[in-house]
């Protein structure tokens, strides 16, 4: 029996749930299933999957969750200590008990997908799947076939959303589960918001999450998008994020990948109007036998568009990292600027990284650069720190964090920066970013 059949059987067993749904959803679900059946799971013979073996997903057996039970105390221990509008999903199922969007202003909607469909399915049907269709990848097709839940965020034009919007995805231990969340964000013209996707869970969990996120930024919109992936180390995590940017928009992605046994991120920005700017900051950390694959793509579809990408990988033990970043400049998209940098730090001899930066340019008046390096910690620097009385583990932690600094310095939400620091460098004597101390020094000097 093929690997795909197992998943199609699970879908069939679920079909009684889908009987009452609107015809457009049923049609897309069928299209997703058909496309998935035709494509099958990718193999390493596929160029896009050359470095990533998904057999642990394809040959796995995953059930679909029917409830969102999760203890309040356990959730509180995992959740980001941050004042935010919050939606929580447990193995893909919406938990109203762990959600709080009470104080949202009327100009912002943050709804579970199921509720948004109930209220006005036609309004969801238009944008859903417009950026990430079933042809994008077998996983996008699979997601469409199984789509049940997720988050719909609508920000009215001109709205400045003061608090971050936090989408929290929790993974439970026990029988392996799968979920296929859909995230749909429409940011109105000149709106401003911060969106956080946070993946976490019980440490013994071994679930498969296959999320598709589509983000549409209307003229002048500004969106900061954090993806803090702290999934349990047994989790399998595939994410496809597609961003559409109209004129004068600014999108900033902070893709922080710490957890998961197998992780694949696809991040794509379409810069469709002049003045659109996209920033991709990424930090991926792997230990044990973790496999973390980041595929990014910036499409400069219009003149005078700007992209800036900085991805840093830190790999320990026998971890394997992948960075594949493409910058594509459409014919006659003149005066664009596209910068890309990827640096990787290997903390062990058996850690490994495959880095592949790519430029594809069909215009003649552009400013583009890309580069990638891979290296180890500087032993002379470790020695120098130790001669000052700093123990070796702390010295290594400090230097590892210093390596991550270029990306971490961009993270303005302390609660997130602290999680990353702790994961990457272990417990250091104090917070690494001593901005406060330096300010004190400057004040003393005045």
């Amino acid at each position: 029996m093929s690997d795909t059949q197992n998943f199609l059987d699970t879908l069939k067993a679920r079909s009684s749930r889908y009987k009452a749904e609107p015809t457009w959803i049923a049609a897309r679900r069928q299209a997703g299933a058909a496309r998935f059946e035709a494509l099958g799971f990718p193999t390493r013979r596929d160029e896009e999957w050359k470095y990533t073996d998904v057999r642990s997903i394809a040959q796995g057996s995953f059930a679909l969750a029917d409830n969102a039970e999760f203890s309040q105390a356990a959730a509180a221990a995992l959740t980001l200590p941050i004042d935010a509008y919050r939606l929580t999903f447990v193995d893909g199922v919406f938990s109203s008990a762990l959600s709080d969007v009470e104080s949202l202003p009327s100009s912002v909607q943050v709804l579970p997908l199921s509720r948004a469909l109930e209220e006005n399915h036609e309004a969801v049907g238009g944008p859903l799947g417009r950026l990430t269709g079933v042809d994008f990848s077998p996983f996008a097709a699979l997601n469409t076939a199984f789509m049940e839940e997720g988050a719909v965020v609508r920000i009215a034009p001109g709205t400045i959303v003061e608090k971050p919007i936090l989408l929290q995805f929790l993974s439970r231990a026990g029988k392996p589960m799968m979920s296929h969340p859909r995230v749909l964000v429409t940011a109105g013209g000149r709106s401003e918001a911060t969106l956080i996707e946070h993946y976490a869970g019980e440490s013994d969990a071994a679930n498969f999450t296959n999320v598709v996120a589509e983000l549409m930024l209307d003229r002048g919109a500004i969106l900061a998008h954090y993806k803090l992936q702290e999934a349990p180390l047994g989790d399998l995590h595939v994410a496809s994020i597609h961003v559409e940017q109209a004129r004068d928009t600014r999108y900033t992605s902070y893709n922080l990948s710490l957890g998961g046994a197998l992780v694949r991120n696809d991040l794509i920005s379409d810069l469709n109007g002049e003045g659109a700017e996209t920033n991709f900051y990424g930090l991926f950390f792997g230990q044990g036998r973790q496999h973390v694959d980041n595929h990014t793509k910036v499409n400069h579809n219009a003149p005078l568009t700007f992209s800036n990408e900085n991805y840093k990988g830190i790999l320990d033990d026998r971890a394997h990292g992948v960075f594949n970043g493409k910058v594509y400049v459409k014919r006659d998209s003149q005066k664009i600027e596209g910068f890309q940098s990827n640096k990787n730090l290997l903390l062990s001899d058996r850690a490994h990284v495959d880095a592949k930066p790519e430029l594809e340019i069909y215009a003649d008046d552009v400013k583009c650069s890309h580069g990638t390096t891979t290296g180890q910690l500087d032993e002379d620097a470790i020695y120098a720190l130790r001669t000052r009385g700093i123990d070796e583990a702390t010295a290594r932690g400090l230097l590892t964090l210093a390596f991550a600094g270029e990306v971490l310095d961009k993270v303005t939400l302390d609660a997130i920066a602290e999680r990353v620091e702790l994961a990457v460098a272990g417990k250091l004597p104090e917070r690494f970013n001593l901005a406060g101390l330096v300010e004190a020094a400057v004040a003393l000097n005045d």
Partner: protein
Amino acid sequence: MLQVKDLHVTVEDKEILKGLTLTINAGEVHAIMGPNGAGKSTLSAVIAGKDGYEVTQGTITFEGKDVLEMEIEERAQAGLLLGFQYPVEIPGVKNIYLLKSALNAQRVARGEGEMPAPEFMKLVKEKLGFMKMDASFLQRAVNEGFSGGEKKRNEILQMLVLQPKLAMLDEIDSGLDIDAMKVVADGVNSLRAADRAILLVTHYQRLLDYIVPDKVHVLVDGRIVKTGDAELAKQLESNGYEGIEESVA
């Protein structure tokens, strides 16, 4: 305070120190001089614990403890601090963080507890001023993009903040112009105290015009061949090392 007895050290199977003996007492300033390749830098590197130096014979004790049995950081925590000839650049690690982590690591190791931030900043500010360094140094990554003189001043700044019992300064004068040399020398002189010792390793006598040593040792071919007071350095300046080598031979 520090006792080095019959120290033999090889680097890549080549014997560099060939039976070096040296005693430094609290309150003293010692200078080790010698021609290139005599083993001057090897001595301070072995005391600090750098990899690649094999001690084949002899002992080093500091306040009665066997230095060769201590980890690198334990030596620093015990009060042995080396100022580098070529300070290492540490990209991404801010100077202020190095100072604070190092000071607190040493204090915690001594059971003193971390220094409160306001007190720490007051201390750092005072020492910065003494070394004629701007507060912006604190925010810069350690030694990254520093000029030669700035790097050396930064080494002394670390000494002033960390207050070691034995400060070892390896060729701290190399590459300094006369103004920078004076600032560095003032910094070193301010460390002089009855309960502290200083070991200067230098090729040139010039530094010793500004930091007058109690004892001068001449190191030739892995051994101390002559010991005297500050006058010895002046003789070396006029006669060179050849005269000493001949007199020993």
